């Protein structure tokens, strides 16, 4: 599943970020392979806002399409 397919409120774990240039920048914002995050808001065909604790990061839709994620069940605690 890709990040752009996650719905608002869902929790997920990032499984792959293909672009190396992007992943080195993203990791500082808490976005990396293995990170457990939540989708705070999704614009129709626009950016996806992901949340890590109190922090929010906006990801452009095209970029979100390149990021692979796995949905977390309600039971998966952080």
């Amino acid at each position: 599943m890709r990040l752009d397919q996650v719905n608002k409120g869902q929790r997920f774990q990032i499984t792959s970020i293909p672009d190396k240039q992007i992943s080195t920048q993203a990791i500082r914002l808490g976005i990396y392979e293995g990170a457990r995050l939540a989708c705070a808001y999704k614009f129709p065909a626009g950016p996806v806002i992901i949340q890590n604790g109190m922090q929010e990061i906006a990801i452009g839709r095209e970029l979100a399409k390149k990021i692979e994620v796995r949905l977390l069940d309600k039971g998966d605690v952080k």
Partner: protein
Amino acid sequence: MQCHNMTEKIDINKDAKKIVLVGNPNVGKSVFFNALTGAYVDVSNFPGTTVDISSGRYKDMVVMDTPGVYGVSSFNDEERVARDVILYADIILNVVDALHIERDLFLTQQIIDMGKPVVVALNMMDEVKKNGIEIDVDKLSQELGVPVIPTVAVKGEGIEEIKEALLHCARVGNRLPIVEENLQAVRHLVDEDSEALLVLEEDESIIARHNISGIKGMREQIYQARRERVDEIVKKVMRQTNRGASFSVKLGRWMLSPLTGIPILIVVLWLVYEFVGVFVAQTVVEWTEGLIMGEYYYNFIMNLLEPILGTESFLGQLLIGEFGVLTMTPIYVFGLLLPLVVGFYLVLSIMEDSGYLPRVAVLTDRSLNYLGLNGRAIIPIILGFGCVTMATIVTRILGSRRERFIATMLLALTIPCSAQLGVIAGLLGPLGIKMTALYLFVILLVFAVVGTLLNRVVPGKSTDLMIDLPPLRLPRIGNVLKKTYVKSKAFITEAGPLFLLGAVIISVLQYTGILDLIADGFAPITEGFLKLPRETAVAFIMGIIRRDFGAAGLNDMVSQGLLNPSQVVVALIAITLFVPCIAAVMVIFKERNWKEAILIWVSSFIISFLTAGIVAQVIV
């Protein structure tokens, strides 16, 4: 871009210890800087960049501020500058936003991995409580291995403790095991532990600086380990006591969601227009340009030089003529541009410091995607309504050359600067809603069509939006003023000389009669295709020198009753789309290569006349 050890640039005692302030953007570093250094501060520009470094003194030590960054490396100008200051620091004061430790501690851990003695200021502790979060400060200090001091810097809480800690208890913290294990292998290649870490992290400039080759970098592994370590620390020290979102969190959400966000954006833009477009561009400029520069200064310089030079000689024309280096240039730069630029940077600094700007970027991201840009490009576009020259310089923040080209072209072509906006609004007002709508429709259409086409044909790849949304905060007035001052000064020193050069070129064209030839050459197009009176060509030519001259020229013609309403709209469309002013053109040549600059210039000509001509054929 060539960067060297920044500390050599500032005149300091070589033996003095250097305290360097480090932190993510908008964490309140400058409040600490001011508290440590007091009034005596030196702001210096880092060579080859628009980045400024403040330095001052605390006791017998030098204190240096750095631009806000998320990590130490070389992704952009800010990072390169911060990196070079941090690398050679003696003590680091790391300011951390307590509300965002999962973000900020990444940088903290990296500095600790460099082996620098660190003091951490855990700032904005008041907001932590407000948001129902608890942080175990002692535990955090223990995990990091460095002193951590809770502060509320804007209220002065914790400042004395920080001062004390910097003198006595800065400590080298707990490095990541992966760094500890691998650092020795590269340590002999460089001068400092901090450099060795960046070599391991594959920082190209440090590797090049020490002529290192054949090292197997491990950036990904180290970043991953650091991220995991930070998340582990956060889990140990932070506890959420209730989940009630504060008002600022809710407001931040409203600003983002299109249903509420777009109306908020419209109101904000309207306020900006009222402030910059009406108050500054008309009231303030009338005073600065009309009175101070246009009368006092102009009369002074003419009384001084006219008896010596006369106005007919070439030198007279060059220095004090219509486009003179001593007359028009300073009047334009200081009377008109400066107030506009200051007004706009003031607004932009407020939007930036309050955390609103990234939200606007998110809101506009999707629309800008169609033009091959991402949400970040809204920043130069908004600035363009203030001054296209300034906006063109700001396109540097965009992620790729392709985006910078598209944004520059759209700015040059379609965005009327505030010097013009007032005159345009004044001319459109009396024509009624229909004509105003027609004008807006045509300009927006050109903006959208040209952007979409450029997105299709310009080679390369645009970057995607990835932006941190900081919490909304009331901006600090001192900070806003300082930012405005630094940026306005940088703009004037950069654009001023270019405008001077432009004035010289125009004077030469006029003295040699080439300017008249150009105006005559335009006449067939103006009369035949645009269906406008012959004199309009002069207004267009004036528009090259100063955009508002062009608009003002039209204004004169309207008051003489030379243009009917349809012709006014055609002329306004032409002059809006027409090439930017000479200062902007010079900046375009400087920022882009000459091929791209000529392409932008020539196509602005063609598109403006073509569009206005088509409209003329339909409505006049």
